[in-house]
């Protein structure tokens, strides 16, 4: 497509395509195309002017070529990209703001005074009504103050002030609405694009395929801990399904043959085969958006304490105005006090700060679901780590297989992989990968596979009862015995590795040695976190005491607990909360879910089980642990900013009130200063909190 360069500096080019404008879809296509090149760091497409801005690193000529080569016909863009694009949303709100600004100032130029007065009064009715409604709820809220301010100005015939107050409030509302919707949309996009591979079955065999390749009518198997990827009807099996993401119910619902299930819900227990009735890309994104909008969790989550501050000041302002009226009997002075309402400044600055911090976290690959959690992270003094996948690399590897029953190592590994491949646990993945590396493929040798959370898997292979799992599961729960003469071999098993026990028909068949290397930055991250004020760092793991002890000392945690069951993790979190501490929990597996919900801020690692990611309050990319440190810095900076803004707003506005009372400032000037400072502070709230220039 032909384009012309409009502006250029090193590393940034703005071009204009020879069209009058793009439609939303065309603009999105171009955006997708541009973002697919690694040399392009950031691309922005303006649909109204058919312009594109490209930030790039590298060869300028390359970029020119990329731009010139753009051919929308040849682009293959997944439908889900269009669906989850927030372009139309942004366009709508941008338009609204521009129109309201132009209208407000244009009115003064074009409309005669009487007409303006009528319009102002009509508009005021809306705000007065809002204020009156809050009186009914018996709480003194910001809306009441706004109504008082507007009503009072109209009473004294100061229509200009009334109109500017309404204008500012209107802009504030629109901005808040916009950021709210944008937050929801970004969250939904991240949640909807995360389902990658699913198990398709034809009744006998299961094959893992990309979610994009499934069509209506296909059969998909969904097991415990996994998200149901598509809407469907249960054909076989039964399960307890957590439908919180659809209906908000916390209690799981049982679904059996013939029951309908929805995309985005999670199988908590059991296993089902579903016939797909609607494929991805057909409304899943919209469903998630609706779910988020309706979920109470998000609403109360966004109400971090900071945003409630505005309401607390309402009584003081009203009292101040009343006092002024009594003392000076001058309505103008009382009105000038009302004009300088702290609440509208706070109401603009606080939510903007919080929402902008959430967006900035997103830039670092951290998804935060609400302002409350950033608060919790900042105030936390206890941090609980799950060992596997968090402190250790998400990819443990199989070091060796020790045979205990005389069978060939590779056969045993093959069987183990066969059992382990269905479950979302990093150790299971290690076994599967090891088998794959050795070229050990298998047809499904087993029958129904049962997963006992945090313990192991039981099934039967060729008629024998096969078990694979932790020491606790195999020896204590299932009472497996070590074959004759192999006791020494057992005792000699090396300590440095985690042990995975595989038993058949009640006898230990093999021990798989798993190497679970600690992440290189684990030590450093823990030290950084301690420097930033987290006093107790605790590690919990289902692993054996020996391995846990070694890792704990290497990594430098304050306390560690081994052989922990999922309920214990949650119990520990609750206990600490009772003593007044704020607790952060970081985990990635199904067995971390109860603890993640119990913690003040539950953090899930991106690569972990889907149910953990759904329940968690914050999700972090798995690449490196230093994100946690960034998260802490971000939260601390946010809290500092909120406190500082609060102080600034209170002092500055109090000063304005004082000067107004003393007669130094006329009310129109104090109103102007108040408005200007409000906008300035509002804009400042949206700036970045962290100075770092990190490339993601």
């Amino acid at each position, binding site marked *: 497509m032909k384009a012309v360069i*409009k*502006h250029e*500096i*090193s*590393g*940034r080019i*703005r071009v204009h395509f020879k069209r009058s404008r793009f439609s939303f879809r065309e603009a999105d296509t171009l955006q997708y195309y541009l973002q697919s090149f690694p040399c392009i760091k950031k691309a922005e497409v*303006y649909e*109204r*002017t058919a*312009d594109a*801005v490209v930030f790039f690193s590298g060869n300028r000529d390359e970029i020119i070529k990329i731009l010139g080569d753009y051919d929308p016909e040849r682009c293959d863009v997944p439908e889900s990209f269009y669906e989850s694009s927030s372009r139309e949303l942004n366009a709508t709100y*941008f*338009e609204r703001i*521009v*129109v309201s600004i*132009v209208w407000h100032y244009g009115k003064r130029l074009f409309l005669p005074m009487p007409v303006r007065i009528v319009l102002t009064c009509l508009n005021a009715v809306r705000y007065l009504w809002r204020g009156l409604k809050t009186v009914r709820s018996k709480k003194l809220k910001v809306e009441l103050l706004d109504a008082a301010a507007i009503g009072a100005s109209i009473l004294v015939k100061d229509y200009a002030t009334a109109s500017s107050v309404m204008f500012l409030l209107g802009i504030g509302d629109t901005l808040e609405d916009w950021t709210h919707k944008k937050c929801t949309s970004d969250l939904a996009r991240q949640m909807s694009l995360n389902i990658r591979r699913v198990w398709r079955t034809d009744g006998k065999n299961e094959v893992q395929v990309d979610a994009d390749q499934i069509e209506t009518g296909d059969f998909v198997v969904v097991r415990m801990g996994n998200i149901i990827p598509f809407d469907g009807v249960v054909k076989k099996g039964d399960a307890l399904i957590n439908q919180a993401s659809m209906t908000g119910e916390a209690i799981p619902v049982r679904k059996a043959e013939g029951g309908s299930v929805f995309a985005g819900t999670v199988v908590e227990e059991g296993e089902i085969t579903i016939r797909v009735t609607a494929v991805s890309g057909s409304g899943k994104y919209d469903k998630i958006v609706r779910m988020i909008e309706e979920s109470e969790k998000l609403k109360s989550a966004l109400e971090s304490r900071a945003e409630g501050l505005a309401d607390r000041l309402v009584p003081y302002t009203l009292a101040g105005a009343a006092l002024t009226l009594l003392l000076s009997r001058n309505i103008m002075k009382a009105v000038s006090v009302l004009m300088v309402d702290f609440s509208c400044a706070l109401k603009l600055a606080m939510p903007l700060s919080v929402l902008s911090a959430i967006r900035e976290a997103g830039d670092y690959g951290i998804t935060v679901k609400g302002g409350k959690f950033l608060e919790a992270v900042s105030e936390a003094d206890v941090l609980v780590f799950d060992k596997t996948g968090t402190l250790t690399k998400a990819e443990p590897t199989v070091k060796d297989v020790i045979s205990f029953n005389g069978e060939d190592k590779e056969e045993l590994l093959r069987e183990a992989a066969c059992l382990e491949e269905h479950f979302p646990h990093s150790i299971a993945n290690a076994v599967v990968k090891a088998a794959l590396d050795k070229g050990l493929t298998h047809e499904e040798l087993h029958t129904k596979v049962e997963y006992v959370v945090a313990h192991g898997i039981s099934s039967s292979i060729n008629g024998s009862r096969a078990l694979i799992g932790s020491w606790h599961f195999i020896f204590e729960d299932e009472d497996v015995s070590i074959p004759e003469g192999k006791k020494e071999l057992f005792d000699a098993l090396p300590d440095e590795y985690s042990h995975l026990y595989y038993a058949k028909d009640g006898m230990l068949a093999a021990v798989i040695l798993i190497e679970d290397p600690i992440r290189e930055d684990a030590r450093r991250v823990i030290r950084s976190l301690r420097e930033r004020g987290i006093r107790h760092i605790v590690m919990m793991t289902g692993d054996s005491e020996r391995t846990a002890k070694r890792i704990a000392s290497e990594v430098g945690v304050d306390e560690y607990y081994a052989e922990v069951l999922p309920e214990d993790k949650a119990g520990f979190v609750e206990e600490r909360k009772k003593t007044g501490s704020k607790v952060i929990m970081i985990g990635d597996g199904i067995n971390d879910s109860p603890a993640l919900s119990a913690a003040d801020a539950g953090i899930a690692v991106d690569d972990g089980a889907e149910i953990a990611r759904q329940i968690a309050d914050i999700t972090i990319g798995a690449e490196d642990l230093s994100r946690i440190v960034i998260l802490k810095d971000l939260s601390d900076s946010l809290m500092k900013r909120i406190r500082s803004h609060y102080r600034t707003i209170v002092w500055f506005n109090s000063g304005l009130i004082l000067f107004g009372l003393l007669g130094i400032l006329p009310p129109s000037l104090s109103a102007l200063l108040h408005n200007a400072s409000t906008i300035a502070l509002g804009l400042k709230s949206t700036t970045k909190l962290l100075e770092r220039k990190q490339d993601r």
Partner: protein
Amino acid sequence: MGWSKFGIFLGGVLFGTAGIRILSSRDAKKVYTHCTAAALRAKDEIVDKATVLKENCEDIYEGAKQINEERAARDREAEIAESAEKA
């Protein structure tokens, strides 16, 4: 005089009968539709201009940032050259 009052009354009657008919007739509706279309076009123009303004402001802002970065880099180089000389 009585005539002006009568005139107002007559005006009212005319408005209530023929006036309303005219204002809500199909032809009038066409006029309204065209006016609204023009207003919407005006709105589009305005928002387009706002977008152009935004783009230009961003150009200026990014350009300014780059100037400052280059300055800072030159200053740093000068510092390093100085301390290298002293050593």
